[in-house]
């Protein structure tokens, strides 16, 4: 009987050892972020490729490789209105013995909104402002499921740009501007200039990161992003204007509230915790009882039940999906300018919370203004 007890204890030890974390090697890097991103896309499992496409798209965007960024975003994102359907991977994500991150990556609502925001910017670059507006509206709709009504569809810049484009297309964009201003709080948003022909999209800092929360990792918790820059000062053609921060991505991510998936993960967490508790009690009490000849039979039975509890608890995977679009910014900003046709140099300085220009962050950007279409610039700190 002692042999049986030893085998059971050995099994318990083996199961515990099986949970040791796997060590992942750092990726190779030769200085080219886009090339490294493509390697990661190639190496990533199918359900995680889109995340690497999105990350690589922003590297490409920051490096001015707009065609590359546009293609990656288009490939990574479902079309507007596409229903994200159930498949083998989503069913696996809901199963007791798989973590959530086995499903295909589409990001959380703030990440989906950012994808549409960037796509809208590209449509505007391509001279299709109404398609850009369509993307900004879809982006805003991604945020419509926030738990608190006041946080639903409350991105300031998305409404502001919706109204701006509507105004430029000769219709009234006042309603969207009113919504944007209501969500902007004390930040005074610039009025629309229907004759503005240079649109400057700005972003600052590092966005929020997901990590697991809850007793057994069943919740997503956001590590707040960080940005020294709080505004940008643009000087061009003898004019200077301040572009305030319109949106804070940490705020948008953390005001999402509970997801439908959280209820499934909570159920899994309950099973895991119960299994672990039964296991702890069963194994401890069973080992004590099994050591006495009088209670040996009951002890072994309890040990078996405890082991079964441990197996169920150890095999249950309630971990939330913390895969993150890691290179999103903390703040979004925007400025519109009216410049004569030709080439200009814009000086862009990033300002801290006190309005002081941050050293080594100044950027000189060449702006080529054409007749009959808007020039769209993207500048990141």
């Amino acid at each position, binding site marked *: 009987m002692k042999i049986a007890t030893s085998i059971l204890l050995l099994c318990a030890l083996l199961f515990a050892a099986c949970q040791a974390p796997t060590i992942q090697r750092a990726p190779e890097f030769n200085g080219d972020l886009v090339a490294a991103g493509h390697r990661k896309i190639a190496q990533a499992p199918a359900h995680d490729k889109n995340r690497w496409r999105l990350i690589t798209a922003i590297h490409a965007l920051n490096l001015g490789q707009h065609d590359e960024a546009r293609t990656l975003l288009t490939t990574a994102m479902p079309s507007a*209105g596409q229903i994200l359907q159930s498949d083998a991977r989503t069913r696996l994500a809901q199963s007791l013995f798989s973590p959530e991150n086995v499903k295909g990556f589409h990001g959380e609502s703030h990440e989906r909104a950012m994808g549409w925001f960037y796509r809208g910017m590209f449509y505007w670059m391509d001279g299709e402002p*109404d398609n850009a507006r369509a993307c900004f509206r879809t982006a805003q709709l991604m945020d419509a499921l926030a738990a608190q009504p006041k946080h639903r569809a409350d991105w300031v810049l998305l409404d502001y740009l919706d109204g701006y484009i509507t105004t430029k297309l000769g219709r009234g964009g006042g309603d969207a501007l009113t919504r944007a201003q209501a969500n902007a709080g004390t930040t005074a948003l610039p009025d629309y200039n229907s004759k503005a022909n240079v649109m400057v999209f700005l972003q600052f800092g590092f966005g929020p990161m997901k990590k697991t929360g809850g007793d057994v990792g069943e919740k997503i918790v956001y590590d707040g992003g960080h940005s020294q820059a709080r505004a940008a000062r643009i000087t061009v053609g003898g004019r200077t204007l301040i572009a305030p921060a319109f949106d804070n991505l940490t705020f948008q991510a953390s005001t999402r509230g509970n997801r439908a998936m959280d209820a499934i993960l909570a159920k899994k967490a309950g099973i895991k915790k119960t299994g672990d508790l039964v296991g702890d009690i069963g194994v401890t009490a069973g080992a004590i009882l099994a050591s006495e000849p009088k209670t040996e039979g009951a002890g072994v039975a309890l040990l078996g039940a405890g082991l079964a509890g441990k197996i169920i608890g150890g095999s249950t995977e309630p971990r939330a999906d913390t895969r993150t679009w890691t290179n999103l910014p903390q703040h979004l900003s925007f400025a519109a300018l009216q410049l004569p046709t030709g080439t200009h140099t814009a000086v862009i300085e990033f300002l801290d919370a006190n309005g002081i220009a941050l050293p080594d962050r100044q950027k000189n950007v060449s702006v080529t203004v054409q007749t009959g279409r808007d020039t769209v610039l993207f500048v990141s700190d």
Partner: protein
Amino acid sequence: MKHITTLFIGIALWVAVGCTNINSQHGPSVTELRPGERGFVAGLGIESQDLVTISEKMARGILGAEPISNAEGKPVVVLEPINNDTRFPIDKDIFLTRIRVALSKNAAGKISFVAREHMDKLEKERDLKISGQVTGGEKITGNKFKGADFILTGTFKAISSRGASGASDYVLYTFQLIDPDTSDIVWEDFHEIKKQGKDDVTYR
């Protein structure tokens, strides 16, 4: 024995038919559908089946419109890009192109379209001819580019909502034929589609 054989053949046929359901996600990896058919990746947006239905309806409407059916000679129609006021980015030319080809196919020479979108290339070609760098310049006397008798354009508007119970999109497609001399809307028609759906629970 006869009954068993019949039953066996019946079941085999039923299984074979079931296996060839082209709309099944578990079927072949590539499936060719008619453009008017709704595929299994259908969503809430503007899709090929909407394009086919709407463009055919509008083409029929335009052909039956009084200014077209009673026009003397062949009226010249210019296509102007659609104003997209929805949340769906679209290829704005695709609807008008689809209507144009449907009209060209069914109008039997009643309507003439001009290729304004190629104006730069056309002007370049005309200038080459006039300058004698290529042949055909002798046939050009004055400006031969045609002006429009009518402008065909459209506007798409939408009401979109999203909540815990799913997402819904209503899109109103309107098309107008406008007389550019008077700004009169000489013909107008619309089509409306409402779709709703729900993402899988893991993405909500």
